[in-house]
């Protein structure tokens, strides 16, 4: 490669490829940050396996494709990037993320979108426990998590804002229920949409599944169109079954819990 090869390359058109095999996570992330600082906008990471903190805190609108299994806290605190994982992701995807999008073509681990405050997380398959806990929204910043498979216990626990959509369509475990127990426990904002029925015993104390109104239908369709476009899924099929929603039953669900 000529000395100025990197400089001559059209950064917008040709992605920067990194073979992450055997690279320690700090070195990998240093490499990415430096390249972002130099104006790189497109990345392809190959042979990723367990490297933590990828794309964390990056506040530019870069695009990144990840092949392999990225490590904990993928895209934490990020403010702008679009990250596509061609495989499974581990725990803590999109921890406290602000702006941007993470698409996972496989499964994701526990605590996806913890304290998420904006952006999108689109997961094709199953997700783990405590997805979307402590999500929040402010004015036009509405974080959205869509799970194509099934979810574990505590989905949307303590949710204060934002949207979680659970489809249950692309799970590797046909026998298991669409979600675990304690869904929406302590939620005081936001909404969880579930495709099909929700067994009330799966919900946190005081919650009941409700019908969608026209505003819900409009928003749901908008979020799902984007999801289906990202993952090449037939939107009509997703919408062919009615949804139920779970919303807070009060602004302060546990206001009297310790006041007896």
């Amino acid at each position: 490669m000529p000395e100025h090869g990197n400089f001559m390359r059209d950064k917008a058109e040709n992605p920067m490829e990194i073979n992450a095999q055997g690279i320690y996570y700090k070195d990998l992330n240093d490499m990415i940050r430096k390249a972002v600082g130099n104006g790189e906008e497109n990345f392809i990471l190959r042979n990723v396996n367990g490297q933590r903190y990828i794309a964390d805190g990056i506040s530019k609108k870069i695009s990144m494709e990840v092949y392999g299994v990225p490590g904990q806290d993928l895209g934490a605190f990020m403010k702008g990037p679009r990250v596509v994982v061609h495989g499974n992701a581990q725990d803590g995807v999109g921890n406290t993320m602000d702006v941007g999008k993470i698409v996972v073509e496989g499964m994701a681990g526990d605590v996806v979108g913890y304290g998420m405050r904006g952006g999108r997380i689109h997961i094709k398959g199953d997700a783990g426990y405590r997805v979307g806990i402590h999500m929040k929204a402010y004015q036009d910043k509405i974080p959205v998590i869509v799970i194509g498979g099934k979810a574990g216990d505590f989905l949307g626990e303590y949710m204060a804002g934002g949207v979680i959509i659970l489809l249950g369509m692309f799970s590797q475990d046909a026998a298991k229920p669409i979600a675990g127990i304690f869904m929406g426990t302590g939620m005081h904002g936001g909404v969880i949409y579930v495709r099909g029925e929700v067994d009330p015993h799966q919900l946190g104390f005081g919650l009941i599944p409700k019908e969608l109104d026209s505003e819900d239908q409009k928003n749901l369709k908008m979020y799902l169109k984007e999801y289906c476009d990202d993952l090449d899924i037939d939107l009509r099929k997703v919408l062919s079954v009615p949804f139920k929603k779970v919303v807070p039953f009060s602004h302060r669900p546990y206001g009297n819990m310790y006041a007896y």
Partner: protein
Amino acid sequence: MKSWQYQKDISGCGLSGIINKNGERVTGEGIICSIACQHDRGNGLGGGFAAYGIYPDFKDHYALHIMADNLDALHAAEGFLNQTVSVVHQEKIPTRPNKYITDPPILRRYFVEPVKEGDRICRWPGLSDDDYIVRVVMNVNRDIKGAYIFSSGKNMGAFKGVGFPEDIADFYRLDEYAGYIWTAHNRFPTNTPGWWGGAHPFTILDWSIVHNGEISSYGINKRYLEMFGYHCTLLTDTEVVAYLLDLIIRRHGLPVKLACKVFAPPFWQEIDQMDKESKRLFTAIRMVYGSGLLNGPFAILFAYNGGLVGLNDRVKLRPLVAAVKGDTVYMASEESAIRAICPDPEKVWAPKAGEPVIVTMNKGVSTTKKQPRISPACAGTW
């Protein structure tokens, strides 16, 4: 031991386990690669391994691994062994220098059987061999200052100390052992000292356990175990699990699956939803074994000569991933730790909270006849 280093910091800990159900033994490189992939889950204050099938030449004898602060402690322990067991072979545990492993204790191993009546004077006549060896271990660990038996099973062994697991493995030369089950631990001590005895795995007889989390019920579990002659001396919560396994499964005869329900029982609200028979069973389990319940966050892997088991607490406060390829089953804290040694598993899944993943050896397999296999190259680590 001498080098207690008190440390309180954010929690992590990494686990990895491999079992070949067909009894095929592989060398240690694979498990080392897998746990090293999770390097940053630990902080260098504890690493350890358990390996099964490693002592085929002495497979019918209990392999006692001893760590001792000094020669006085070692001699006191040896004196006690000479009174209580017949030693057929003894040697230093082979080690090689590693610059990150400092100030190790004296490490020896003894292949033994209980002294039988009519031979020399049997210290505790009437006990089964297993119960006898448990008593030997408890007596040494409780009564001999500075000496600990940290492994006491047949055809298996624990290797542990203060350091990152990949360095501990190098120190103990684990690439030279071949086992059909391996477990590994990368420690990040939070509430108890990082010292040689406190590294995982914890063992008694052929039970070994590695653990990520905190057992808040330690006090209750410890007092319960004392009633049955188990004494906790290693200053770490996880120790109780090793003895609970021995008590509940070996001595009380509960199936492994039910023992897991002692540790992580269904919630009362779940029991309310059960049919009549299950309701009776789980109510009884919670009543009889309430003091065996493990409270607090945990992911554990425990092993014995016949299998490997993974278990989470009831609300999954620590991660655990499992995968299968052929006759080999993998479990680890992170999927990447599995893919580091098995890039293309047939199935990967996250076990449900409180539901054990129980992998037992295929029926009738021999673990001693086959030639050991060199572990495949380490693919995905740094």
